[in-house]
């Protein structure tokens, strides 16, 4: 609607009843999960006893974060448009000596599409989630989810599966046709939670001094606003009043964590909007996030932990320069930031040339010789062009 609506007095329904019919959001989902397993309805994919670190979540439940032997549930936007994001997650595992599996038998969670268009239904969305979980189970690795939206959507799916027999029956009928079991992991784990528990090990291998950097953090909506009780909180970070992930890493590697007033705001991604209605995404990202940070904290870099947030906050800044907006903050994921701290190559590993905002001043402040690094990357590209190598290998990148 383009103009303000003219309002009649809202009618008051005589029999208006706000009756809580649903379950409370702080229920202990594992009781339900294991109960269903005991009844033979599903298989719970467990994290091995010697393979996790326990952390506190928002309402105090202890959450297990697997250390290694993980099935990497990749993100469409990260792999497609910010490839240094996923590459850095893998690189961190390799550098810390933790085994992982990068599967080809994984599909997107398809939730970006679902939140954009609603062109799907609960049965399809749950079946897609559980097909991926079943595949991870059959492959013998525990799922580690790269995308914040996959993480959020899978938590919603877990609630639906736990509470609705009809949905479980529908999904089972679909999975039977595919020859897959109905499997659910005992925890839904986001990669930024893995980085959170690895922050001391990352610090121990740090090669680049970050003490001159000022950093702002954007917590991803689908990480801490969708099924809120799974998100990690820590009394030592913002007094436990906002999620600890990402901020914990920034502090651990010695950068200056700077606050700003609109930290809770969304990035403006909008799912549908970022693809076909970007005027909204651009305006929100610039006016409510980037300009506020610039004015209140003047950071060298903005660190976040989801596909859509990196994309929106980074790519939205270019066009707004035409309107003299106060922009120009490089945007990286926590995975890339951790990798750079440990001395990862900015182009071969972190693939910073796929980002929009000029990140050379940031690299200079980090003491990284970006001209030399780019020349090294171009050597690899020339080797590919000449046919000397088909692809750049991990050995070439490391």
């Amino acid at each position: 609607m383009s103009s303000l609506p003219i309002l009649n007095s809202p009618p008051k329904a005589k029999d208006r009843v706000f009756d809580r019919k649903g379950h409370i959001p702080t229920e202990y989902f594992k009781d339900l999960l294991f109960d269903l397993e005991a009844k033979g309805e599903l298989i719970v994919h467990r994290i091995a006893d010697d393979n996790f670190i326990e952390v506190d979540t928002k309402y105090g439940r202890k959450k297990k974060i697997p250390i290694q032997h993980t099935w990497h549930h990749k993100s469409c936007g990260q792999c497609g448009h910010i490839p240094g994001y996923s590459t850095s997650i893998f690189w961190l595992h390799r550098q810390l000596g933790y085994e992982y599996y990068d599967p080809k038998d994984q599909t997107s969670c398809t939730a970006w599409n679902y939140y954009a268009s609603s062109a799907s239904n609960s049965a399809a969305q749950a079946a897609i989630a559980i097909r991926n979980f079943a595949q991870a189970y059959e492959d013998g690795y525990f799922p580690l989810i790269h995308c914040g939206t996959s993480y959020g959507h899978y938590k919603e799916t877990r609630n639906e599966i736990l509470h609705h027999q009809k949905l479980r029956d529908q999904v089972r009928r679909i999975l039977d046709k595919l020859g897959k079991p109905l499997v659910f992991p005992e925890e839904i784990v986001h990669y930024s939670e893995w980085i959170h528990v690895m922050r001391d090990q990352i610090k121990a291998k740090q090669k680049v001094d970050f003490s001159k950097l000022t950093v702002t953090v954007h917590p991803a909506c689908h990480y801490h606003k969708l099924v809120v009780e799974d998100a990690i909180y820590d009394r030592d970070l913002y007094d436990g009043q906002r999620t600890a992930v990402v901020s914990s890493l920034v502090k651990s590697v010695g950068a200056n964590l700077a606050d700003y007033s609109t930290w809770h705001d969304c990035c403006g991604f909008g799912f549908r909007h970022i693809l076909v209605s970007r005027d909204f995404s651009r305006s929100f990202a610039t006016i409510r996030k980037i300009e506020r940070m610039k004015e209140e904290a003047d950071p060298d870099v903005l660190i976040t932990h989801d596909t859509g947030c990196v994309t929106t906050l980074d790519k939205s800044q270019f066009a707004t320069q035409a309107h003299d907006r106060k922009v120009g903050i490089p945007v990286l994921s926590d995975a890339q930031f951790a990798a750079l701290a440990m001395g990862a190559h900015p182009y071969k590993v972190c693939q910073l040339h796929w980002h929009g905002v000029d990140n050379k001043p940031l690299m200079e402040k980090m003491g990284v010789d970006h001209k030399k690094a780019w020349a090294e990357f171009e050597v690899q590209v020339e080797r590919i062009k000449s046919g000397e190598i088909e692809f750049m290998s991990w050995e070439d990148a490391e």
Partner: protein
Amino acid sequence: MASIYADAKYQDVSEEVKQKLFDEVKADMRWETTLYGCYECGICVASCPSARFYQFSPRVYAQVMAREDIHTFYELLNDSVWDCSQCFSCTRCPRQNNPGGIITIMREVAVNNGMQSAKTALQAYSRIIYKVMSTGTQVAPDMLQPDFFPDWGPDVVKVSENLNNWRRAIPPETMHTTELAWDVSEQTQLELYLIWKLSGNLDQIEILDEGIFMILSEVMEELLEEHGYDLDEIDVVV
């Protein structure tokens, strides 16, 4: 009873039609965990990105749905329902309402009924639906073209010019792709397509965009037959 909007656009639509759509929203299994009450405090509106740039209010959704005001519901379903960002910032609600969740369900009802608001909002979006349903990844490197993202600056031009070589200069072997975000095995793509088909989702796509439905069916069903699947055996099971 009339809509709260004095300038309501759909006053001539029958109450029966509006009630049917409203009942479809309420019949969704998620409905009972989206709305518990409303203090009218406005925290959801203050948290909402869309409320800052559109004539959109999550509080109106909570109020209208709680009052079962089918007339205003129908106005929302035909207009601002597509303005929501689906960020779920509104779940900051002290009554634990989920206006974003109400909107997810409303949008699904709009799509299922082939409503014009859904077709208009998703007009330029069909190629994305085709991409995710046929390949298993939603966005792909080859979408980074200046004509699709003209506002993302000169880096998009550089990426599109160097796409093949730059994709091969990424270490993980699953990411040397240009048409998919990562290398999804053909068997996995087929399993995804079977899920769309078995869950009745393709019927929904046919309502939304017949052209996309026909291309998708043709391409994927040829692939299924190549892999020995009997198409007569694959019926909607939901």
